């Protein structure tokens, strides 16, 4: 009995505690990220944005949450009820599940698995199911069109994203996310004789791939200018037309969790994760989680700025960009990275 408690109950309790901690912190972060998104959007358009609920509108997201939860969920009579309700659940569960392998600081990770980056990539590629299932189960024209669009779009951009990740892995030599961050302590900067700094991170050495990754992440998460699945000018709200109240909120939550995940992923792959920008004592003294959150916030700021002032793509242009521009470009860059690593003898 003693062995049972120390072998199963105690590890399980620790695991559940860690998961809950990450989940609550993440949901709070998403609440304020939503607020920040709306504020940035408003600032670009010279509006005030949410400013009524709480001081400076800081409690707006929580008021929205209450409103969504208290409303009556409406299920269309022609809808496929089971799949209709399953779709938002799938979307939000998958988006939150990926956070299990994200390292927030040295050793601060729930599941430090060998194939961490593949796990993130696999779960991210499943997120399209929430959208397709929602669009199909609604049994109406606009949601279905939105679902078809998003299926094609998300599958297309995953390809170039995969190549970018492979190029980063070539430089690191490991699929573990913690290893990927630690590999960025040495890089271009240390090679030319500077101390450890932000010049070592992959964003400088792999700059074109960073750009491709950023744009693909926008398309992968259905953010403007690639929000064709929910283009309100043509499809009303795309796959979410028939949704309301809590199911709708879960779609939104899943969407923002995926966006923050992509910000965290680009932080880990290109911006050195929790590493401080300069190796000096007062910056090293700041806990790594602060740097991590700051970098994620910076990435998110770029996401929301793009949303605020880039007009929406046309659908054929979107497909052209994905298949005819990004795919060949990332493939060629991958080969170049491999050659450079081999010729300079810096391959891990």
């Amino acid at each position: 009995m003693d062995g049972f408690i120390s072998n199963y109950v105690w590890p399980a309790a620790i695991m559940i505690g860690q998961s809950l901690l990450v989940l609550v912190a993440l949901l709070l972060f998403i609440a304020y990220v939503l607020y920040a998104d709306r504020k940035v959007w408003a600032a670009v358009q010279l509006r005030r944005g949410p400013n009524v609920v709480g001081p400076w509108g800081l409690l707006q997201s929580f008021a929205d949450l209450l409103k969504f939860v208290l409303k009556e969920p409406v299920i269309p009579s022609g809808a496929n009820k089971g799949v209709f309700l399953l779709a938002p659940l799938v979307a939000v569960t998958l988006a939150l599940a990926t956070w299990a392998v994200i390292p927030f600081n040295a050793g601060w990770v729930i599941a430090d698995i060998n194939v961490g980056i593949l796990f993130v990539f696999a779960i991210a590629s499943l997120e399209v199911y929430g959208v397709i299932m929602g669009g199909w189960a609604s049994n109406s024209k606009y949601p279905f069109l939105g679902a078809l669009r998003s299926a094609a779009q998300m599958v297309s951009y995953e390809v170039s994203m995969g190549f970018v990740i492979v190029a980063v892995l070539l430089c690191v030599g490991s699929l573990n996310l913690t290893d990927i961050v630690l590999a960025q302590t040495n890089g271009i900067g240390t090679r030319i004789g500077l101390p450890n700094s932000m010049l070592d991170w992959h964003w400088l050495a792999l700059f074109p791939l960073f750009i491709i990754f950023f744009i693909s992440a926008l398309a992968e998460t259905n953010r403007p200018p690639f929000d064709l699945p929910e283009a309100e000018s043509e499809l009303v709200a795309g796959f979410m037309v028939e949704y309301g109240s809590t199911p709708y909120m879960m779609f939104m939550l899943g969407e923002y969790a995926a966006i923050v995940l992509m910000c965290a992923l680009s932080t880990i792959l290109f911006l050195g994760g929790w590493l401080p920008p300069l190796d000096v004592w007062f910056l090293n003294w700041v806990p790594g989680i602060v740097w991590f959150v700051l970098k994620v916030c910076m990435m998110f700021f770029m996401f929301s700025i793009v949303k605020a002032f880039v007009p929406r793509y046309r659908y054929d242009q979107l497909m052209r960009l994905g298949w005819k521009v990004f795919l060949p470009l990332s493939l060629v860059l991958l080969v170049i990275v491999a050659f450079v690593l081999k010729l300079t003898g810096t391959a891990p």
Partner: protein
Amino acid sequence: MGLQALFFYLFAFVAVASAFMVIAARNPVHSVLFLILTFFNAAGLFLLTGAEFLAMILLVVYVGAVAVLFLFVVMMLDVDFAEMKSGALEYAPVGALVGIILAAELIIVLAGNAFNPAAAGSGANPIPAPSERTNTQALGDVLYTDYIFYFQIAGMVLLVAMIGAIVLTLRHREHIKRQDITEQVARTKETAIEVVKVKPGQGI
């Protein structure tokens, strides 16, 4: 060990049950969704045996890409499945035969060592312990170092098949407006604008 067994039975039960539902479900889209659930549980089983790389690749390739296209096609097709199902029993003997052959082959492969204990020692290479070598590395060694030429030939065959499929189905239709980005970008003021002086009362 207890937890592993628990999860094995969980994944195995859900995989078998959803595989049954793939053929039992009335709605074809539900069938595909159950198929996806089966894949997912198969990935879980891979993870339990320590084949983490295979598990993730199964998710990325089959669930993330192939099944999406599958779902895509099934949703777009408007097939009367009640009619199709009515004739399905005629094919049952053939299906059962294929199933029996597959099962027999699997038993021969998996239980071969039990029938012939001498074969157990004649494996090509001894397998290192998972603690020394991650299976991502091991697979990479086999595919890209030991058998690189066979791997490249396989890749070549696939590439030729892909190009062949595209060539067979590509039809370049005339009289359709196409966008040529380079042409648009290369336009200058001289080629884009024509200044016409119109005299009063004459028009162009």
